[in-house]
């Protein structure tokens, strides 16, 4: 009996900004239906790692998705395979309405109207606030609503792997907790998630495993509940 390959496998992935090596060769995996979190201080290389996986920056190394090498694919081709990223700062189309943003999320579907409607209904079930304001311009929403829209738009794309870059950034604690709780719910339904997050206590509640990145390299990989036993990490990330 052969084991199924991981949903995502990153092997020795590195990226440079000019002469600066922002990401030294890193390797990580995300299994099917697993929620993995990546922790680390500002400037550690977390965002670069996500951007390298999705080819938004030039990178060396290998990325395997469901056992297939996708290292040579362009960003938009990765999206058609089901690798969807919610970027830091949300990347919303500020001049468009909630509806238009969500419709664009389902871009890879083509003109499959019924499937698009079905996904829209699912997003509105998760985030009823978006349904109430469906024709409001995205740029006029509160930070929390914008983050809901960013996650909702990513879900419209029908992701097999959802990668999020600090979704709680700039949000009130309660709003951030709600967003992360929704991610937990999506994971319980079987969605693989790679979560880069500053609010470590919240992320560690949801995650099965955690990677710690410092200075562009992975400093530790551990089960989420193990972090308490690592005195230095617990001191840094749990307080």
């Amino acid at each position: 009996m052969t084991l199924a390959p991981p949903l995502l496998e990153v092997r020795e992935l590195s990226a440079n900004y000019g002469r600066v090596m922002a990401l030294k060769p890193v390797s990580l995996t995300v299994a099917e239906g697993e929620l993995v979190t990546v922790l680390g201080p500002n400037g550690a290389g977390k965002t670069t790692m996500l951007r390298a996986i999705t080819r938004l920056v030039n990178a060396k190394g290998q990325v395997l998705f469901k056992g297939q090498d996708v290292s040579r694919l362009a960003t938009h081709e990765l999206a058609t395979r089901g690798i969807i990223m919610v970027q830091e700062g949300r990347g919303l189309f500020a001049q468009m309405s909630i509806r238009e943003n969500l419709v664009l999320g389902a871009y890879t579907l083509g003109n499959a109207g019924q499937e698009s409607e079905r996904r829209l209904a699912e997003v509105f079930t998760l985030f009823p606030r978006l349904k109430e304001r469906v024709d409001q311009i995205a740029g006029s929403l509160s930070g929390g609503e914008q983050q809901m829209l960013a996650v909702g738009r990513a879900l419209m794309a029908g992701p097999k792997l959802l990668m999020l870059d600090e979704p709680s950034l700039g949000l009130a604690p309660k709003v951030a907790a709600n967003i992360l709780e929704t991610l937990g719910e999506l994971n319980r339904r079987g969605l693989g998630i790679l979560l880069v997050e500053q609010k470590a206590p919240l992320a560690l509640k949801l995650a099965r495993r955690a990677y710690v990145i410092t200075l562009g390299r992975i400093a530790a990989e551990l089960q989420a509940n193990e972090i308490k036993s690592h005195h230095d990490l617990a001191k840094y990330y749990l307080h």
Partner: protein
Amino acid sequence: MTLPSTISTSAPRWRLTPIQIAGALAGVALLAIVFVNGGYFVTVIGFAAIYGIFCTGLNFFMGYTGQASFGQNAFAALGGYGTAILCAGQGWQPIVALPATMVISGLIAVVIGYPTLRLRGHYLAMATFALGLITYELSIEWIDLTQGYMGYAGIPPLGIGKYELTGDRQQLVVLVIVLLLGVWIANRLRNSRFGRALRAIAGSEAAANALGIDIARYKLAAFVVAAVYASVAGSLFAHFIGFISPEVFGLSMVTLSFTMLYLGGIGTIWGPIIGAVIVSMLPEAFRGLKELQDIAYAAVLILILIFFPKGLAALPGMLWRRRNESKAEGAP
């Protein structure tokens, strides 16, 4: 988990506000006055219609896709000189030459756009500016083909077979029909999946890319669409006036079209037409001021841009919102 949803992915139905209806009626009234009176104003509104077509294409690339191009005049020159060479030089029928020049311009746009559109921001603007300058120089120096500074004369008016539109009024009708057809096509494209992808690129290239939109392909497509519109405008100019020279498609075309686009409302459907009509008519309206004409013209342009930074096309929406707000405040 799927719940029935009363909200659809399609956009809400488009409704005309009274102010928009008034604007449309004003446009029809203007055309009627020009048509009845004839004369020089037919030429002025004819120019406005041609520039309206040019700016509608430019709006596609700059307004919807959020890219900069200072070189669309190159494609207008291709259309104009293509028409002159094919119709006056080779004796082609205008009805055949027009689509031929559109195809040629589109193909050249693909060849030029493919490497050029890898650039962004100021670099793209400079590269397209260079494209316009190179075309201008070619139209001067390649005398065997373009007749240089002397210009190309004897271009026949639009027509089919032996039937030619010799009258100004007849030509104006055709120009307005082509303009409205161009706006209709642009509006259909804007609201299609293709148009939504372009507007996503204008909003955030990285986000659009991450959602599966092939940025390079769509930018190139928008560039080609804009080039084809510019080519049509150049061809129609050649047929309308019967003569072209390098100056027609020079730098003044770039500055004039930018003024029209921003004054009318970049990124809006009707903005290019409103801008083209206003910018074409203002100098005529101030003709009586003699040496102060240019100053008055510039002052009005500046005032419009200060008070309506989103362009005149945004004015109806602004007034309508204000009316609704004051209604809401007055409600018990």
